[in-house]
C-alpha cells in the first residue's frame, strides 16, 4: 500500500468518523437501530453539492447538510414516537423515501463538485502536501466534534438521553420525557451523518444517490471495531475509539484490497466489509470464552 493510498484511507475513515459518531449515538446511546443514515448521508452530500454549485460558502453548505440530516432523523423519530412504528421499520421507511428526495434535490442521480471552493481549499496553501492537508483538516473537525459530543453527553440533558436509551422506564420515573430524547438524539445522530455526507461530497468531488448504500454497515463496523480495540467506560474515550475504529476499518479494507496475495478486487469491498465486521463481532466473544475457560 502506497503512502497516498494509506492517507486516502485515513481521510475516508475520518469522513466516516462523523457517520460512526452518529451511529454510536443512535445504536449505543439511544438503543435505536437506525437505518436512516443510508439516506441522510447521501442527502447531506446532495444538499452540499447543490449549495456549493449554487455558489454557497462551503461551511454554510455543511450547515445546510447537517440541518437536512437532522430533519431526516426527526421524520424517523416522529414515525416511531408519535405512531409507535417499530424503530427499525420507521428508519427503513425514511431511508427509502430519501432515495427519491435525494434525486429531487440534485435533479439527477449524481453531480460533480469539482474545482469549487470547499472547506479544505484554504488550507492547501499551508505548504503541506495535498494528501496530508485533507486528513489534517478532517482530523481537527472530527476531534472538535468528539469534544463537543462528550461534553454534551456529560450534561444534564445528555445524561437524560443516555438514561432514556438504557432504561426508558427509569428515565420516565425520573421525569425524563423519553419521546423528546428520541427526537433530539435522532436529529443529532443524522445531523452528524449529513455533515459526513457534505464533507464526502466536497473531498471526493461528487455526490451520488447510491453513495448511501451500506452507510449503516460502515458506521456500525467503525463502532464495533472501536469498541473491540478500546473497552472503556469513559465517554470521551468511547467516542474517540469510534472515530479510530472508522479509520482502522478503512485501513484494513485498503490493506485487504491492495494485498496481491489475496486476489481481491475493488468490487469485493462489501464482502471484505462483511468479513471484517463479523470478525470484530466474534473477537470479544472468543476472548470472553478463553477467559471463562481459564
Amino acid at each position, binding site marked *: 500500500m502506497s503512502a497516498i493510498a494509506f492517507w486516502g484511507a485515513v481521510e475516508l475513515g475520518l469522513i466516516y468518523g462523523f457517520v460512526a459518531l452518529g451511529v454510536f449515538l443512535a445504536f449505543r446511546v439511544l438503543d435505536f437501530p437506525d437505518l436512516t443514515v443510508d439516506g441522510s448521508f447521501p442527502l447531506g452530500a446532495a444538499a452540499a453539492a447543490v449549495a456549493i454549485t449554487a455558489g454557497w460558502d462551503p461551511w454554510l453548505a455543511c450547515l445546510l447538510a447537517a440541518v437536512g440530516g437532522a430533519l431526516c432523523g426527526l421524520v424517523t423519530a416522529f414515525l416511531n414516537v408519535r405512531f409507535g412504528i417499530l424503530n427499525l421499520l420507521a428508519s427503513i421507511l425514511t431511508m427509502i423515501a430519501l432515495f427519491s428526495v435525494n434525486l429531487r434535490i440534485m435533479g439527477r442521480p449524481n453531480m460533480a463538485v469539482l474545482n469549487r471552493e470547499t472547506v479544505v481549499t484554504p488550507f492547501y496553501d499551508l505548504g503541506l502536501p495535498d494528501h496530508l492537508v485533507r486528513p489534517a483538516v478532517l482530523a481537527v473537525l472530527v476531534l472538535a466534534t468528539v469534544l463537543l459530543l462528550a*461534553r*454534551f453527553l*456529560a*450534561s*444534564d*440533558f*445528555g*445524561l*437524560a438521553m*443516555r*438514561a432514556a436509551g*438504557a*432504561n426508558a*422506564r*427509569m*428515565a*420516565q*420515573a*425520573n*421525569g*425524563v*420525557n*423519553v419521546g423528546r430524547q428520541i427526537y433530539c438524539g435522532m436529529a443529532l445522530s443524522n445531523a452528524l451523518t449529513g455533515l459526513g455526507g457534505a464533507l464526502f461530497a466536497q473531498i471526493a468531488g461528487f455526490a451520488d444517490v447510491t453513495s448511501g448504500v451500506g452507510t449503516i454497515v460502515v458506521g456500525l463496523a467503525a463502532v464495533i471495531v472501536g469498541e473491540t480495540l478500546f473497552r472503556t*467506560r469513559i465517554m470521551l474515550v468511547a467516542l474517540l475509539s469510534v472515530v479510530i475504529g472508522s479509520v482502522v476499518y478503512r485501513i484494513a479494507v485498503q490493506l485487504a484490497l491492495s494485498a496481491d496475495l489475496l486476489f481481491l478486487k475493488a468490487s469485493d469491498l462489501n464482502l471484505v466489509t462483511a468479513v471484517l465486521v463479523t470478525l470484530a463481532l466474534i473477537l470479544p466473544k472468543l476472548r470472553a470464552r478463553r477467559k471463562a475457560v481459564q
Partner: protein
Amino acid sequence: MISVQDLHVTFNPGTPLERRAVNGIDLTLQEGEFATVIGSNGAGKSTLLAAIAGDVAVERGRIEIGGRDVTRQAPARRAARVARVFQDPLAGSCAALSIEENLALAAMRGARRGLASALNAGRRALLRERVAELGLNLEDRMGDRMGLLSGGQRQALALVMATLAGAEVLLLDEHTAALDPGMAEFVVELTQRLVKAHGLTTLMVTHSMRQALDLGTRTVMLHEGRIVLDITGERRSSMDVDDLVAMFRKVRGGEELDDDSLRIG
C-alpha cells in the same frame, strides 16, 4: 397529599382480554401520611400505583396530587412530584451508568435539564454525602457502574434517588420483595428514615402482613379492584398479624359467598 376519587382502570377494554384492574377506588392520604397496601394477586395494588404515577391510562375518576388534578398529566411531568421505587431492583436505575450519574439524573427530576455539566464539583460532593449516609461504603465507589452492585445496594440507592429532588409523594411497589431478608430489613429501615426526614406522603404495596402493620400509620386492603379494608389509629395498633390474615381470609371467603348468592339469586 394524594387524593384518588372513583378511580377505574380497565385493561384491553372492549376485547376478550378485558380486565377491570381497578374498580372504583376512593382514597385520600393526608400530607405526610404513610399507608401500606395489601391484597391478593390481581387485586389492583400495582395498578393503583401505576395510575397515580401516570403509567396506565385512567378510564374514569380523578387523581389529585397536592391538590392539583394530574389525571391526564404525562408520567414524566408528574415525576416532578411523584418519586417511585420498583419491585425489580434492576428497574429503578441504569446498569450502564455510574452510581453518581444515576443519582445526578434523579437529582434533576422535575427540573429543566440543560447543558450544564451533570457532575459538577458541588453536586458530586452533595451526592457523595447522601450516599455516605447509607453506611454501605458506596461513597468511595461513586464512579462504578450501577450494574456491579447487588440488588439490595441498588434498591437502597433507588430510595436515595427518590428523595433527592424533593418529591411530595413516594410510591413503593413491593420494593423489598426481591431482596434477601437482611437487606430487606435494611431497606425497610431506610424507607422509614427517609420518609420521615422528607415528610413524604407514602403509599407502599407489600406482600408481607408484618410490614403492612409495622410500617406507616394506615393499612389498606384491596380486593378485585376495590378497597375492602381501611384501618388506622387504635384499631390498627391493637391488631396483630393473625387478625389481619383472618380478615384477609374473610374477604376472600366473602367472595365465594357472593358467587353462591349470585347463583342462587
